[in-house]
């Protein structure tokens, strides 16, 4: 069974004729060519496929496109505005919060939803918000730091990478080698 669906993705409307059993993840990647959203476990457990629907993070691998018609879908491709990367993207790059990068789009989307709701989250709030995004590379420390750096910059505090590392050392989030 195919169905006509109308999706609003990153501000653009798409009318598509898709099989009803294709997930939003498959439609984003295969029909719309938006391959930033990653295909991980497809079981709801890894968060690589996280997108925002009306600003809230959901898993595109567990969502049927027909169910999100008329709602505002944001993928990682919609994070930068007019070619300027989102502060989260800048902070992730500066702090090496992405290694292989596979978890990064999902992390960024969960983090964006967090910052939109909680502009200055504590490390625990960041960890809780990202608990559904698994990373096999970084060990998460850099990711938590990057989210907090982006948060402070968004609030107009132009923290530098050095500031952020010093603050992380002071808070005991990371330790100096041998300390």
């Amino acid at each position, binding site marked *: *069974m195919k*169905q006509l669906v109308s999706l609003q993705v990153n501000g653009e409307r798409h009318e598509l004729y898709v*099989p*009803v*059993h294709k*997930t939003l993840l498959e439609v984003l990647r295969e029909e719309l060519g938006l391959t930033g959203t990653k295909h991980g476990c*497809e*079981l*709801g*457990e890894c*968060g690589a496929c*996280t997108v925002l*629907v009306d600003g*809230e*993070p*959901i*898993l595109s*691998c*567990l*969502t*049927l496109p*027909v*169910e999100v018609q008329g709602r505002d879908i944001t993928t990682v491709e919609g994070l930068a505005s007019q070619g300027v990367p989102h502060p989260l993207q800048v902070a992730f790059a500066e702090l090496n919060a992405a290694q292989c990068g596979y978890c990064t789009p999902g992390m960024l989307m*969960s983090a964006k*939803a967090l910052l939109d709701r909680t502009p200055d989250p504590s490390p625990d709030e960041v960890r*809780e*918000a990202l*608990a*559904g*995004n698994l990373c096999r590379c970084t060990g998460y420390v850099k990711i938590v730091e990057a989210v907090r750096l982006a948060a402070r910059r968004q609030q107009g505090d132009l923290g530098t990478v050095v500031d952020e590392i010093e603050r992380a050392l002071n808070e005991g989030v990371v330790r100096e080698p041998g300390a």
Partner: protein
Amino acid sequence: MKGFEYYAPETLDAAVEILARYGEGAYPVAGGTDLIPKMRYGHVAPQAVVNLKRIPGLNRITSLENGGLHVGALVTLTQLSREALVRERYPVVAHIAGKMASAQVRNLATVGGNLCNAAPSADLAPPLIALDAEALIVGPEGERRVPLEHFFTGPGATVLGPGELLTAVLLPPPQPHTRAMYIKHAHREALDIAIVGVAALVRLAPGTATCQGARIVLGAVAPTPIRAREAEALLEGAPLTEEHIAEAGRLAAQAARPIDDVRGSAWYRRKMVDVLTRRAIAGTRGEGGDLT
């Protein structure tokens, strides 16, 4: 995933009609967080999938005249955890709803889906049973109410007949001098299924430490969530002393009928029922633990 007929009815009557017409072959879908992975694995291959999210009113939480709460089946875990009425009247429910799965899953997953999926480990079941919640069911024959305690009939099985839907969970008004606690024991806090879950609810006689009423409900240690009635009976009318609490733990462990599986052995689960029952009861007195 195999193909299926997809329906998104806009009234309860239409949903019931479609479900009744297909019988066993039709599956309602709410958040899809249990159903879609099962379809992916090929555990189920529905002929028809009936999306319930277009039916108005099913996603609302409303206060009842008697001071209780009507929680629509399509209320998400996120809504349940944030709703002020739930946080004030039944903090034990709001607390676990905000801890289950992950933020992304909680935005999709619903109360009705958690209960109708009927996993023995479903985290909402023990606290809701402890609160004497009822299931509101609508089907071809009309509406009926079933105490949530009797809603589950086996792993993945409930009293719902062909064409029947869970429309809401009804919570009785909160009782004075009553506190409840649910402890979920799992390998990690997020994204994990309970190895054992224990809910304890204790009502004290005003100004005393004498228990007037108790519920001890166990998850993930029997084919369905179960009440440990011997443990409840022991506590009722008795002072909440260390000895009584320890005895209640032993009786709860005896009531458990756990199995060995990847998450834990039957032996371990039974031991943990004893430990967690004691902790949960003590927790309702505000002694240690994460009181809710």
